[in-house]
């Protein structure tokens, strides 16, 4: 799966969590722009993990602040899960 396909799938998954209909770019941040709280993060991460059959550990989550970083991380993880 290429990065564009990963992006397309995550964009679809994020829709129900994007309550305010924020326009999503690579620079969109989860904490500030999307106002995700810790529970939303858990549910959203679980959806992505199930979709791509990967684990995004809390250690990795701590490094991800914006949408572009998430797509990069998932793209890398589904190529090389370890």
């Amino acid at each position: 799966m290429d990065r564009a396909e990963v992006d397309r799938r995550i964009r679809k998954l994020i829709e129900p969590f994007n309550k305010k209909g924020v326009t999503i770019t690579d620079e969109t941040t989860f904490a500030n722009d999307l106002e995700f709280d810790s529970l939303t993060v858990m549910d959203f991460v679980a959806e992505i993990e199930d979709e791509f059959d990967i684990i995004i550990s809390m250690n990795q989550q701590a490094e991800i602040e914006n949408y572009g970083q998430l797509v990069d991380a998932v793209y890398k993880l589904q190529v090389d899960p370890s």
Partner: protein
Amino acid sequence: MQADQPETREAAGTDLFSKFDPIIQMREKLLGTGIEDPFSLVMERVLSPTRAVCNGRETILLGTYNYMGMTFDPDVIEAGKQALADFGAGTTGSRVLNGTYQGHKDVEQALCDFYDMDHAMVFSTGYQANLGIISTIAGKGDYIVLDIDSHASIYDGCKMGDAEIVPFKHNDIEAMEKRLKRIPDGAGILVVLEGVYSMLGDVAPLKEMVAVAKKHGAMVLVDEAHSMGFIGENGRGVAEQAGVMDDVDFIIGTFSKSVGTVGGFCVSNHPKFEIMRLVCRPYTFTASLPPSVVATACTSIRKLGQASNKRAHLWENSKRLHGGLKDLGFTLGTETPESAIIAVIMPDLEKGAAMWEALLKGGLYVNLARPPATPANMTLLRCSLCAEHSESEVEEILEIFENAGKSVGII
């Protein structure tokens, strides 16, 4: 510039405390309504395990972790006095240097007997037990799979170690198994669960969860802080009640709840467990518990093993309070009583604080719990029962709840 005067910093430095501004504002807003501060209560006198004088009023205590009422047990008090006289006020040293007295060995033996396990290691607090064991056994390249609602001491233990941290949805067996399946082959896995989750007082489905963890080759740690002494035939906790004691690798517990003093511990049958005393930093680099504390804990644990009548009475109290509050129209954290904790869900922090104050003025102390300690950003009035609450005290508690609930407009 004069050499003997401190140089004024020209650059506008950041006040390191500015990160606390939101919580300072929240607190000011709450206290601005003229309410008694829920987080600065002083107990001027403690009359018994269930009664104290708080802010000048005699109050029924329904927000302590004194589940088995051992704090004033005459045998426990006597053991503490004797140890204080014989061994002094403190050890002034680490367990691995000059801080292991006969009393520390005795309380570890009492734990081995209580749990019927080979090894017991006593820490200075329950927090340190989780911090130490979790951070030490799960290292770089290992995975910790844990319930998202785990206690702060579990998260802090995770953060202090170098393992990959993988949380799953609270009490969700399927979510836990999905994550276990995705862990790379050969990686070490520690599954961390709690017997009773202290915010809502709900119990983990340990029978199923421990089986799933074992199927995927994980070691299992269960924190039984809120179940020890009360749940299970011998008071060993939810793992005993679920019949999975043999499959649990580590049980973490505390002396600051049913045991009635302070301290923490881990019990295990792992053949190499004793090495933890040398490699676990929160065990090694701190002073050991005072002799009076380990003596009271030891006596209390021995008595808890035989306390089946008290356990039965505590269950009666829990059922009556849960049923009574439900009948009054309060929203509770669990459908049925699952532990000695009954959480009453409040609509918001303001109403919760008002209700807390109305209860206190009516002569009842409960815990006000608010985010981030609570799941789903809930405000809770957390009631924890004691085996020493009498039947009539529970009725009195329900009456105070009814009056407070009506005056605040919650029921």
